[in-house]
Protein backbone atom coordinates (compact mmCIF):
# COMPACT_ATOMS: atom_id res chain seq x y z
CA UNK A 1 0.00 0.00 0.00
CA UNK A 2 1.31 3.41 -0.91
CA UNK A 3 0.74 6.02 1.76
CA UNK A 4 1.26 9.74 1.98
CA UNK A 5 4.14 10.93 4.23
CA UNK A 6 3.29 10.56 7.92
CA UNK A 7 4.68 13.96 8.89
CA UNK A 8 4.86 17.44 7.48
CA UNK A 9 8.51 17.94 8.34
CA UNK A 10 11.63 15.76 8.45
CA UNK A 11 15.27 16.23 9.27
CA UNK A 12 16.37 14.57 6.05
CA UNK A 13 14.41 13.76 2.92
CA UNK A 14 16.14 11.49 0.41
CA UNK A 15 14.81 11.30 -3.14
CA UNK A 16 15.52 8.03 -4.94
CA UNK A 17 16.05 4.51 -3.56
CA UNK A 18 18.95 3.39 -5.72
CA UNK A 19 22.40 2.64 -4.23
CA UNK A 20 23.05 6.24 -3.15
CA UNK A 21 19.59 6.85 -1.73
CA UNK A 22 19.46 3.55 0.16
CA UNK A 23 22.85 4.19 1.73
CA UNK A 24 22.08 7.83 2.52
CA UNK A 25 18.70 7.12 4.12
CA UNK A 26 20.06 4.26 6.23
CA UNK A 27 23.03 6.33 7.44
CA UNK A 28 20.81 9.28 8.29
CA UNK A 29 18.18 7.20 10.09
CA UNK A 30 20.75 5.16 12.01
CA UNK A 31 22.17 8.43 13.32
CA UNK A 32 18.74 9.21 14.76
CA UNK A 33 17.61 11.80 12.23
CA UNK A 34 13.96 11.77 11.17
CA UNK A 35 14.39 10.44 7.67
CA UNK A 36 11.99 10.08 4.74
CA UNK A 37 12.92 8.21 1.58
CA UNK A 38 10.76 8.87 -1.47
CA UNK A 39 11.06 6.64 -4.53
CA UNK A 40 9.12 6.53 -7.76
CA UNK A 41 9.41 2.80 -8.43
CA UNK A 42 7.36 -0.14 -7.19
CA UNK A 43 10.18 -1.37 -4.97
CA UNK A 44 13.60 -0.17 -3.78
CA UNK A 45 16.83 -0.62 -5.75
CA UNK A 46 16.85 2.10 -8.37
CA UNK A 47 17.99 0.87 -11.77
CA UNK A 48 21.09 -1.14 -10.85
CA UNK A 49 19.37 -3.08 -8.06
CA UNK A 50 15.96 -2.96 -9.71
CA UNK A 51 13.42 -5.36 -8.18
CA UNK A 52 16.06 -6.49 -5.68
CA UNK A 53 13.34 -7.34 -3.14
CA UNK A 54 11.01 -9.06 -5.62
CA UNK A 55 12.91 -10.40 -8.65
CA UNK A 56 11.63 -13.73 -9.98
CA UNK A 57 15.20 -14.54 -11.08
CA UNK A 58 16.14 -16.99 -8.35
CA UNK A 59 19.36 -18.36 -9.80
CA UNK A 60 21.65 -15.83 -8.20
CA UNK A 61 24.63 -16.26 -10.53
CA UNK A 62 22.51 -15.20 -13.50
CA UNK A 63 22.25 -11.62 -12.29
CA UNK A 64 25.74 -11.64 -10.78
CA UNK A 65 27.18 -10.94 -7.33
CA UNK A 66 27.25 -7.16 -7.94
CA UNK A 67 23.46 -7.17 -8.18
CA UNK A 68 22.83 -8.93 -4.90
CA UNK A 69 24.88 -6.34 -2.99
CA UNK A 70 21.66 -4.32 -3.21
CA UNK A 71 19.85 -6.77 -0.93
CA UNK A 72 22.16 -5.87 1.97
CA UNK A 73 21.55 -2.16 1.40
CA UNK A 74 17.78 -2.68 1.45
CA UNK A 75 18.09 -4.83 4.57
CA UNK A 76 20.12 -2.13 6.35
CA UNK A 77 17.54 0.47 5.42
CA UNK A 78 14.58 -1.63 6.51
CA UNK A 79 16.09 -2.28 9.93
CA UNK A 80 16.55 1.47 10.40
CA UNK A 81 13.76 3.86 11.41
CA UNK A 82 13.60 5.56 8.03
CA UNK A 83 10.14 6.05 6.57
CA UNK A 84 10.07 4.66 3.03
CA UNK A 85 7.42 5.47 0.43
CA UNK A 86 7.45 3.72 -2.94
CA UNK A 87 5.54 4.88 -6.01
CA UNK A 88 6.06 8.42 -4.77
CA UNK A 89 6.83 10.94 -7.51
CA UNK A 90 8.57 14.08 -6.32
CA UNK A 91 7.49 16.83 -8.67
CA UNK A 92 8.83 19.91 -6.96
CA UNK A 93 11.73 20.95 -4.76
CA UNK A 94 12.56 24.55 -4.00
CA UNK A 95 15.16 26.66 -2.21
CA UNK A 96 13.12 26.52 1.01
CA UNK A 97 13.56 22.73 0.95
CA UNK A 98 9.85 22.27 0.44
CA UNK A 99 9.03 19.11 -1.47
CA UNK A 100 5.89 18.29 -3.40
CA UNK A 101 5.26 14.60 -3.84
CA UNK A 102 2.50 12.75 -5.64
CA UNK A 103 1.42 9.45 -4.08
CA UNK A 104 -1.54 7.48 -5.37
CA UNK A 105 -2.93 10.41 -7.34
CA UNK A 106 -2.80 12.93 -4.48
CA UNK A 107 -0.08 15.44 -3.70
CA UNK A 108 1.44 16.19 -0.32
CA UNK A 109 4.01 18.75 0.77
CA UNK A 110 6.83 18.06 3.19
CA UNK A 111 9.53 20.30 4.56
CA UNK A 112 13.09 19.11 5.11
CA UNK A 113 16.07 20.51 7.01
CA UNK A 114 18.31 18.70 4.52
CA UNK A 115 17.56 17.13 1.16
CA UNK A 116 19.71 14.46 -0.47
CA UNK A 117 18.93 14.00 -4.14
CA UNK A 118 19.76 10.51 -5.35
CA UNK A 119 17.85 10.60 -8.61
CA UNK A 120 20.55 8.68 -10.43
CA UNK A 121 21.10 8.40 -14.11
CA UNK A 122 19.25 7.71 -17.31
CA UNK A 123 20.49 6.42 -20.61
CA UNK A 124 22.20 8.86 -22.90
CA UNK A 125 20.00 9.65 -25.89
CA UNK A 126 20.95 7.52 -28.91
CA UNK A 127 19.31 9.47 -31.75
CA UNK A 128 19.80 7.32 -34.83
CA UNK A 129 17.42 7.13 -37.80
CA UNK A 130 14.43 5.01 -36.76
CA UNK A 131 15.06 5.06 -32.99
CA UNK A 132 11.37 5.82 -32.33
CA UNK A 133 10.17 2.66 -34.12
CA UNK A 134 8.37 0.04 -32.04
CA UNK A 135 10.97 -2.66 -31.44
CA UNK A 136 13.76 -0.22 -30.62
CA UNK A 137 14.41 0.11 -26.89
CA UNK A 138 17.24 0.98 -24.56
CA UNK A 139 19.46 -1.77 -23.20
CA UNK A 140 18.39 -0.59 -19.77
CA UNK A 141 14.75 -1.25 -20.67
CA UNK A 142 15.57 -4.86 -21.52
CA UNK A 143 17.53 -5.17 -18.29
CA UNK A 144 14.62 -3.75 -16.31
CA UNK A 145 12.28 -6.39 -17.74
CA UNK A 146 14.87 -9.09 -17.12
CA UNK A 147 15.36 -8.16 -13.47
CA UNK A 148 11.79 -7.36 -12.51
CA UNK A 149 9.86 -9.89 -14.61
CA UNK A 150 12.43 -12.46 -15.84
CA UNK A 151 11.55 -11.49 -19.41
CA UNK A 152 14.21 -12.01 -22.09
CA UNK A 153 14.34 -11.27 -25.83
CA UNK A 154 13.26 -14.20 -27.96
CA UNK A 155 12.89 -12.71 -31.45
CA UNK A 156 15.77 -11.67 -33.69
CA UNK A 157 17.69 -9.37 -31.37
CA UNK A 158 20.49 -6.92 -32.07
CA UNK A 159 22.30 -5.00 -29.35
CA UNK A 160 24.14 -1.88 -30.52
CA UNK A 161 26.36 0.63 -28.81
CA UNK A 162 29.10 0.48 -26.25
CA UNK A 163 30.01 0.50 -22.59
CA UNK A 164 30.10 -1.87 -19.61
CA UNK A 165 26.30 -2.14 -19.22
CA UNK A 166 25.94 -3.44 -22.76
CA UNK A 167 28.17 -6.42 -22.02
CA UNK A 168 26.55 -7.07 -18.64
CA UNK A 169 23.10 -7.07 -20.22
CA UNK A 170 24.21 -9.40 -23.01
CA UNK A 171 25.66 -11.84 -20.48
CA UNK A 172 22.48 -11.73 -18.37
CA UNK A 173 20.20 -12.31 -21.39
CA UNK A 174 22.26 -15.33 -22.45
CA UNK A 175 22.32 -16.77 -18.91
CA UNK A 176 18.51 -16.58 -18.74
CA UNK A 177 18.14 -18.34 -22.08
CA UNK A 178 17.33 -15.26 -24.18
CA UNK A 179 18.33 -14.65 -27.75
CA UNK A 180 20.93 -12.27 -29.15
CA UNK A 181 21.76 -12.48 -32.86
CA UNK A 182 24.41 -9.81 -33.14
CA UNK A 183 26.22 -7.16 -31.13
CA UNK A 184 27.23 -4.01 -32.98
CA UNK A 185 30.06 -2.30 -31.11
CA UNK A 186 30.22 1.43 -31.80
CA UNK A 187 33.36 2.14 -29.74
CA UNK A 188 35.57 4.50 -31.76
CA UNK A 189 38.92 2.96 -32.63
CA UNK A 190 40.74 6.16 -31.67
CA UNK A 191 39.34 5.92 -28.14
CA UNK A 192 41.61 2.96 -27.39
CA UNK A 193 44.67 5.18 -27.84
CA UNK A 194 43.12 8.08 -25.98
CA UNK A 195 42.34 5.80 -23.02
CA UNK A 196 45.83 4.30 -22.89
CA UNK A 197 47.34 6.83 -20.43
CA UNK A 198 44.64 5.84 -17.92
CA UNK A 199 45.04 2.11 -18.36
CA UNK A 200 47.06 1.49 -15.19
CA UNK A 201 44.33 2.68 -12.83
CA UNK A 202 41.85 0.58 -14.80
CA UNK A 203 43.95 -2.60 -14.72
CA UNK A 204 44.11 -2.35 -10.95
CA UNK A 205 40.38 -1.60 -10.57
CA UNK A 206 37.66 -4.20 -10.00
CA UNK A 207 36.16 -3.33 -13.40
CA UNK A 208 38.98 -4.94 -15.34
CA UNK A 209 38.76 -8.64 -14.46
CA UNK A 210 34.96 -8.61 -14.31
CA UNK A 211 34.64 -6.78 -17.62
CA UNK A 212 37.06 -9.04 -19.42
CA UNK A 213 35.37 -12.23 -18.17
CA UNK A 214 31.97 -10.93 -19.23
CA UNK A 215 33.12 -9.96 -22.72
CA UNK A 216 34.68 -13.38 -23.16
CA UNK A 217 31.46 -15.08 -22.02
CA UNK A 218 29.41 -13.10 -24.54
CA UNK A 219 31.84 -13.34 -27.47
CA UNK A 220 31.84 -17.13 -27.17
CA UNK A 221 28.12 -17.17 -28.04
CA UNK A 222 27.32 -14.09 -30.10
CA UNK A 223 28.69 -12.58 -33.27
CA UNK A 224 30.28 -9.24 -32.35
CA UNK A 225 30.88 -6.63 -35.05
CA UNK A 226 33.44 -4.01 -33.99
CA UNK A 227 34.11 -0.57 -35.40
CA UNK A 228 30.52 0.27 -36.31
CA UNK A 229 30.51 3.85 -37.65
CA UNK A 230 26.91 4.21 -38.89
CA UNK A 231 23.70 2.79 -37.51
CA UNK A 232 20.03 3.01 -38.49
CA UNK A 233 16.79 1.19 -37.67
CA UNK A 234 14.19 0.75 -40.38
CA UNK A 235 10.73 -0.69 -40.82
CA UNK A 236 7.17 0.37 -41.54
CA UNK A 237 5.54 1.09 -38.20
CA UNK A 238 7.64 -1.65 -36.60
CA UNK A 239 11.36 -2.45 -36.61
CA UNK A 240 12.24 -4.77 -39.51
CA UNK A 241 15.99 -4.40 -39.95
CA UNK A 242 19.12 -2.76 -38.63
CA UNK A 243 21.47 -1.16 -41.13
CA UNK A 244 25.07 -0.41 -40.25
CA UNK A 245 28.51 0.33 -41.61
CA UNK A 246 31.57 -1.42 -40.16
CA UNK A 247 35.06 -1.20 -41.64
CA UNK A 248 33.63 0.78 -44.56
CA UNK A 249 31.21 -2.02 -45.45
CA UNK A 250 27.43 -1.49 -45.38
CA UNK A 251 25.37 -4.35 -43.94
CA UNK A 252 21.70 -5.00 -43.18
CA UNK A 253 20.43 -7.53 -40.67
CA UNK A 254 16.75 -8.38 -40.07
CA UNK A 255 15.65 -7.71 -36.50
CA UNK A 256 12.57 -7.71 -34.25
CA UNK A 257 14.29 -5.99 -31.36
CA UNK A 258 17.13 -3.47 -31.29
CA UNK A 259 18.58 -2.57 -27.91
CA UNK A 260 20.59 0.66 -27.82
CA UNK A 261 23.11 1.79 -25.26
CA UNK A 262 25.88 4.38 -25.17
CA UNK A 263 26.37 5.03 -21.51
CA UNK A 264 24.35 6.82 -18.86
CA UNK A 265 24.13 10.48 -17.86
CA UNK A 266 22.91 12.25 -14.71
CA UNK A 267 19.13 12.66 -14.39
CA UNK A 268 19.21 16.40 -13.76
CA UNK A 269 15.57 17.46 -13.94
CA UNK A 270 14.72 17.77 -10.25
CA UNK A 271 18.11 19.24 -9.31
CA UNK A 272 18.00 21.84 -12.08
CA UNK A 273 14.40 22.75 -11.26
CA UNK A 274 15.55 23.38 -7.67
CA UNK A 275 17.98 25.93 -9.08
CA UNK A 276 21.15 23.94 -8.52
CA UNK A 277 24.09 25.08 -10.65
CA UNK A 278 25.29 22.56 -13.25
CA UNK A 279 28.31 22.67 -15.56
CA UNK A 280 28.99 20.91 -18.83
CA UNK A 281 31.35 17.97 -18.27
CA UNK A 282 33.62 17.71 -21.30
CA UNK A 283 34.78 14.18 -20.51
CA UNK A 284 31.38 12.61 -19.69
CA UNK A 285 29.60 14.85 -22.23
CA UNK A 286 26.70 15.76 -19.95
CA UNK A 287 25.57 18.26 -17.32
CA UNK A 288 26.88 17.62 -13.83
CA UNK A 289 25.99 19.56 -10.68
CA UNK A 290 28.61 21.77 -9.06
CA UNK A 291 29.26 20.10 -5.69
CA UNK A 292 31.70 20.31 -2.80
CA UNK A 293 33.52 17.24 -1.44
CA UNK A 294 30.50 16.32 0.69
CA UNK A 295 28.05 16.49 -2.20
CA UNK A 296 26.59 19.87 -1.16
CA UNK A 297 25.14 21.78 -4.10
CA UNK A 298 24.89 25.50 -4.81
CA UNK A 299 21.52 25.55 -3.01
CA UNK A 300 21.97 25.55 0.77
CA UNK A 301 20.70 22.34 2.35
CA UNK A 302 20.52 20.27 -0.84
CA UNK A 303 23.17 17.63 -1.49
CA UNK A 304 23.41 15.29 -4.45
CA UNK A 305 24.72 11.73 -4.23
CA UNK A 306 25.09 8.87 -6.68
CA UNK A 307 25.18 9.06 -10.46
CA UNK A 308 23.15 12.27 -10.35
CA UNK A 309 26.35 13.87 -9.04
CA UNK A 310 28.30 12.71 -12.10
CA UNK A 311 28.53 9.14 -13.35
CA UNK A 312 30.60 6.97 -11.02
CA UNK A 313 28.80 3.62 -10.90
CA UNK A 314 26.97 1.78 -8.12
CA UNK A 315 29.97 1.30 -5.81
CA UNK A 316 30.78 5.00 -5.83
CA UNK A 317 27.09 5.85 -5.47
CA UNK A 318 26.83 3.97 -2.17
CA UNK A 319 29.84 5.83 -0.75
CA UNK A 320 28.59 9.20 -2.03
CA UNK A 321 25.28 8.47 -0.30
CA UNK A 322 27.07 7.82 2.99
CA UNK A 323 29.18 10.96 2.59
CA UNK A 324 26.15 13.17 1.92
CA UNK A 325 24.27 11.64 4.86
CA UNK A 326 27.26 12.03 7.18
CA UNK A 327 27.50 15.70 6.18
CA UNK A 328 23.79 16.06 7.05
CA UNK A 329 24.38 14.44 10.44
CA UNK A 330 27.35 16.74 11.09
CA UNK A 331 25.13 19.73 10.40
CA UNK A 332 22.02 18.62 12.30
CA UNK A 333 23.34 16.39 15.09
CA UNK A 334 27.09 16.99 15.45
CA UNK A 335 27.32 14.95 18.66
CA UNK A 336 26.17 11.81 16.84
CA UNK A 337 28.47 12.32 13.87
CA UNK A 338 31.50 11.27 15.91
CA UNK A 339 30.08 7.75 16.09
CA UNK A 340 29.82 7.39 12.30
CA UNK A 341 32.54 6.25 9.91
CA UNK A 342 35.02 9.17 9.71
CA UNK A 343 34.74 11.35 6.62
CA UNK A 344 38.38 10.65 5.71
CA UNK A 345 37.69 6.91 5.58
CA UNK A 346 34.62 7.46 3.40
CA UNK A 347 36.61 9.69 1.02
CA UNK A 348 39.26 6.95 0.73
CA UNK A 349 36.48 4.44 -0.08
CA UNK A 350 35.20 6.80 -2.75
CA UNK A 351 38.61 7.20 -4.39
CA UNK A 352 38.87 3.42 -4.52
CA UNK A 353 35.38 3.01 -6.00
CA UNK A 354 36.06 5.66 -8.65
CA UNK A 355 39.32 4.07 -9.73
CA UNK A 356 39.37 3.22 -13.43
CA UNK A 357 36.45 5.53 -14.22
CA UNK A 358 38.49 7.96 -16.37
CA UNK A 359 39.63 5.04 -18.49
CA UNK A 360 36.03 3.91 -19.04
CA UNK A 361 34.83 7.46 -19.73
CA UNK A 362 37.58 7.95 -22.32
CA UNK A 363 37.26 4.54 -23.96
CA UNK A 364 33.47 4.69 -24.13
CA UNK A 365 33.13 8.34 -25.10
CA UNK A 366 30.36 8.09 -27.73
CA UNK A 367 31.26 9.10 -31.27
CA UNK A 368 29.92 12.45 -32.54
CA UNK A 369 27.71 10.87 -35.24
CA UNK A 370 25.78 8.95 -32.56
CA UNK A 371 25.27 12.06 -30.39
CA UNK A 372 24.69 14.76 -32.99
CA UNK A 373 22.25 13.57 -35.65
CA UNK A 374 21.38 15.18 -38.97
CA UNK A 375 18.59 15.32 -41.54
CA UNK A 376 15.21 13.86 -40.65
CA UNK A 377 16.43 11.87 -37.65
CA UNK A 378 14.12 12.63 -34.72
CA UNK A 379 15.76 14.50 -31.84
CA UNK A 380 12.75 15.27 -29.64
CA UNK A 381 10.69 12.07 -29.42
CA UNK A 382 7.71 13.70 -27.66
CA UNK A 383 7.15 16.58 -30.07
CA UNK A 384 8.62 14.69 -33.05
CA UNK A 385 11.16 17.35 -34.02
CA UNK A 386 14.01 16.39 -36.36
CA UNK A 387 17.63 17.50 -36.51
CA UNK A 388 16.86 19.45 -39.68
CA UNK A 389 13.96 21.26 -37.96
CA UNK A 390 16.36 22.37 -35.25
CA UNK A 391 19.07 23.48 -37.68
CA UNK A 392 16.44 25.42 -39.65
CA UNK A 393 15.39 27.15 -36.43
CA UNK A 394 19.03 28.02 -35.69
CA UNK A 395 19.36 29.45 -39.21
CA UNK A 396 16.50 31.88 -38.58
CA UNK A 397 17.69 32.97 -35.17
CA UNK A 398 17.14 30.37 -32.40
CA UNK A 399 20.13 30.86 -30.11
CA UNK A 400 19.73 28.12 -27.50
CA UNK A 401 17.46 25.36 -26.16
CA UNK A 402 15.06 27.80 -24.49
CA UNK A 403 14.54 29.93 -27.59
CA UNK A 404 14.13 26.71 -29.57
CA UNK A 405 11.05 25.85 -27.50
CA UNK A 406 9.25 28.83 -29.04
CA UNK A 407 10.26 27.74 -32.52
CA UNK A 408 9.72 23.99 -32.30
CA UNK A 409 8.37 22.94 -28.86
CA UNK A 410 11.43 20.75 -28.29
CA UNK A 411 11.61 19.57 -24.70
CA UNK A 412 8.03 20.70 -24.01
CA UNK A 413 6.46 17.25 -24.23
CA UNK A 414 5.87 14.96 -21.26
CA UNK A 415 9.50 13.78 -20.95
CA UNK A 416 10.57 17.40 -20.38
CA UNK A 417 13.82 17.11 -22.30
CA UNK A 418 15.09 13.94 -20.67
CA UNK A 419 15.41 12.20 -24.05
CA UNK A 420 16.44 15.20 -26.20
CA UNK A 421 18.12 17.80 -23.99
CA UNK A 422 21.73 16.70 -24.44
CA UNK A 423 21.23 16.22 -28.19
CA UNK A 424 19.69 19.68 -28.56
CA UNK A 425 22.54 21.32 -26.63
CA UNK A 426 25.26 19.59 -28.64
CA UNK A 427 23.48 20.05 -31.98
CA UNK A 428 22.97 23.76 -31.39
CA UNK A 429 26.51 24.16 -30.06
CA UNK A 430 27.91 22.60 -33.20
CA UNK A 431 25.65 24.63 -35.49
CA UNK A 432 26.53 27.88 -33.77
CA UNK A 433 30.23 27.04 -33.22
CA UNK A 434 29.84 27.51 -29.45
CA UNK A 435 30.63 25.26 -26.50
CA UNK A 436 27.76 23.31 -24.87
CA UNK A 437 28.39 25.41 -21.73
CA UNK A 438 27.75 28.59 -23.73
CA UNK A 439 24.64 27.15 -25.38
CA UNK A 440 23.20 25.96 -22.07
CA UNK A 441 20.25 23.72 -21.29
CA UNK A 442 16.48 23.89 -20.96
CA UNK A 443 15.26 26.00 -18.05
CA UNK A 444 13.57 23.30 -16.00
CA UNK A 445 10.69 24.04 -13.68
CA UNK A 446 8.27 22.23 -11.41
CA UNK A 447 6.32 20.07 -11.90
CA UNK A 448 9.23 17.97 -13.15
CA UNK A 449 6.82 15.11 -13.86
CA UNK A 450 3.36 15.76 -15.29
CA UNK A 451 0.52 15.89 -12.76
CA UNK A 452 -3.12 16.64 -13.46
CA UNK A 453 -4.80 19.98 -12.80
CA UNK A 454 -7.31 18.07 -10.67
CA UNK A 455 -4.48 16.87 -8.43
CA UNK A 456 -3.11 20.42 -8.14
CA UNK A 457 -6.58 21.80 -7.41
CA UNK A 458 -7.08 19.23 -4.66
CA UNK A 459 -3.93 20.28 -2.79
CA UNK A 460 -4.87 21.38 0.76
CA UNK A 461 -4.83 25.16 1.04
CA UNK A 462 -5.16 27.63 3.88
CA UNK A 463 -7.54 30.58 3.96
CA UNK A 464 -4.57 32.87 3.31
CA UNK A 465 -3.63 30.86 0.20
CA UNK A 466 -7.11 31.29 -1.19
CA UNK A 467 -7.26 35.03 -0.30
CA UNK A 468 -3.99 35.58 -2.15
CA UNK A 469 -5.51 34.58 -5.47
CA UNK A 470 -9.26 35.15 -5.18
CA UNK A 471 -10.69 38.60 -5.98
CA UNK A 472 -13.18 40.40 -3.75
Amino acid at each position, binding site marked *: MTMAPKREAYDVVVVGAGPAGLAAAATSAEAGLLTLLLDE*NIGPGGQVYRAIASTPVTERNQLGADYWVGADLVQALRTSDAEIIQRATVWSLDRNLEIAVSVGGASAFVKARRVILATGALERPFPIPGWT*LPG*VMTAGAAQT*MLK*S*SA*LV*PDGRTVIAGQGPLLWLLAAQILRLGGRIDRILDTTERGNYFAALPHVFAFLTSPYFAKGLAMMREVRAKVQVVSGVTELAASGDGQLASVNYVAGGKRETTPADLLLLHQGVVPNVNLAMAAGIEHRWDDLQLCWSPVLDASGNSSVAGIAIAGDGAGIGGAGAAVVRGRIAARAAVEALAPAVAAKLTPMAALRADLAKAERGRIFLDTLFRPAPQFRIPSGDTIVCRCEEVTAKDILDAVAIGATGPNQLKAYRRTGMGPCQGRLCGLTVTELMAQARAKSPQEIGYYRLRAPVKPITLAELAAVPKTEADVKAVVRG
Partner: protein
Amino acid sequence: MFKRSEQDKRPPVQIFVDGTAITARQGDTVSAALLASSRDVRRSTAVSGAPRLPYCMMGVCFDCLVTIDGVGNRQGCLVPVAEGMRIEIQKGKREIGK
Protein backbone atom coordinates in the same frame (compact mmCIF):
# COMPACT_ATOMS: atom_id res chain seq x y z
CA MET B 1 9.63 -9.99 -28.78
CA PHE B 2 10.07 -11.19 -25.18
CA LYS B 3 9.48 -14.50 -23.41
CA ARG B 4 9.26 -15.46 -19.77
CA SER B 5 12.00 -17.44 -18.09
CA GLU B 6 10.87 -20.81 -16.73
CA GLN B 7 12.19 -19.99 -13.27
CA ASP B 8 9.51 -17.29 -12.90
CA LYS B 9 7.13 -18.80 -10.34
CA ARG B 10 5.11 -15.69 -9.51
CA PRO B 11 1.33 -16.13 -9.29
CA PRO B 12 -0.75 -15.16 -12.35
CA VAL B 13 -2.78 -11.97 -12.45
CA GLN B 14 -5.60 -11.50 -14.96
CA ILE B 15 -5.86 -8.13 -16.65
CA PHE B 16 -7.93 -6.91 -19.60
CA VAL B 17 -6.35 -5.25 -22.61
CA ASP B 18 -8.95 -3.51 -24.81
CA GLY B 19 -11.45 -5.98 -23.36
CA THR B 20 -9.43 -9.16 -23.91
CA ALA B 21 -8.24 -11.09 -20.85
CA ILE B 22 -4.49 -11.68 -20.66
CA THR B 23 -2.44 -13.33 -17.98
CA ALA B 24 0.29 -11.27 -16.37
CA ARG B 25 2.36 -12.10 -13.30
CA GLN B 26 2.25 -10.50 -9.89
CA GLY B 27 4.89 -7.77 -9.83
CA ASP B 28 4.81 -7.08 -13.57
CA THR B 29 4.43 -3.49 -14.56
CA VAL B 30 1.62 -2.77 -17.00
CA SER B 31 4.22 -2.14 -19.74
CA ALA B 32 6.07 -5.40 -19.07
CA ALA B 33 2.79 -7.34 -19.10
CA LEU B 34 1.80 -5.72 -22.40
CA LEU B 35 5.16 -6.47 -24.03
CA ALA B 36 5.04 -10.06 -22.75
CA SER B 37 1.52 -10.60 -24.12
CA SER B 38 2.60 -10.92 -27.80
CA ARG B 39 -0.38 -8.72 -28.72
CA ASP B 40 -0.09 -5.60 -30.84
CA VAL B 41 0.12 -3.06 -28.02
CA ARG B 42 1.50 -0.11 -29.98
CA ARG B 43 0.06 3.23 -28.92
CA SER B 44 -0.02 6.14 -31.33
CA THR B 45 1.49 9.53 -30.58
CA ALA B 46 -0.48 12.69 -29.87
CA VAL B 47 1.54 14.72 -32.39
CA SER B 48 1.60 12.66 -35.61
CA GLY B 49 -0.16 9.43 -34.72
CA ALA B 50 3.08 7.48 -35.19
CA PRO B 51 3.13 4.01 -33.58
CA ARG B 52 5.27 3.59 -30.46
CA LEU B 53 6.13 1.02 -27.83
CA PRO B 54 7.81 1.62 -24.46
CA TYR B 55 11.41 2.75 -24.94
CA CYS B 56 13.08 3.21 -21.53
CA MET B 57 10.94 1.19 -19.05
CA MET B 58 12.21 3.41 -16.21
CA GLY B 59 9.81 6.31 -16.15
CA VAL B 60 11.64 8.88 -18.26
CA CYS B 61 10.55 8.54 -21.92
CA PHE B 62 6.73 8.54 -21.69
CA ASP B 63 6.45 6.23 -24.69
CA CYS B 64 4.54 3.75 -22.47
CA LEU B 65 1.56 6.09 -21.98
CA VAL B 66 -1.60 4.05 -21.62
CA THR B 67 -5.14 4.26 -20.24
CA ILE B 68 -5.45 2.33 -16.98
CA ASP B 69 -8.84 1.79 -15.32
CA GLY B 70 -10.27 4.70 -17.29
CA VAL B 71 -7.45 7.16 -16.57
CA GLY B 72 -5.39 8.20 -19.61
CA ASN B 73 -1.72 9.18 -19.94
CA ARG B 74 -0.51 6.81 -17.21
CA GLN B 75 3.11 5.69 -17.39
CA GLY B 76 2.59 1.95 -17.79
CA CYS B 77 6.16 1.21 -16.76
CA LEU B 78 5.58 2.64 -13.27
CA VAL B 79 2.27 0.97 -12.47
CA PRO B 80 2.09 -2.63 -11.21
CA VAL B 81 -0.65 -4.86 -12.60
CA ALA B 82 -3.61 -5.72 -10.34
CA GLU B 83 -6.29 -8.38 -10.70
CA GLY B 84 -9.05 -7.23 -13.04
CA MET B 85 -7.21 -4.09 -14.17
CA ARG B 86 -8.62 -2.63 -17.40
CA ILE B 87 -6.09 -1.33 -19.87
CA GLU B 88 -6.77 0.47 -23.11
CA ILE B 89 -4.06 1.11 -25.65
CA GLN B 90 -4.05 4.88 -26.01
CA LYS B 91 -4.40 6.16 -29.55
CA GLY B 92 -3.35 9.79 -29.78
CA LYS B 93 -4.00 12.40 -27.09
CA ARG B 94 -5.61 11.72 -23.76
CA GLU B 95 -9.34 12.25 -24.13
CA ILE B 96 -11.31 14.63 -21.92
CA GLY B 97 -12.93 12.67 -19.11
CA LYS B 98 -10.32 9.89 -19.33
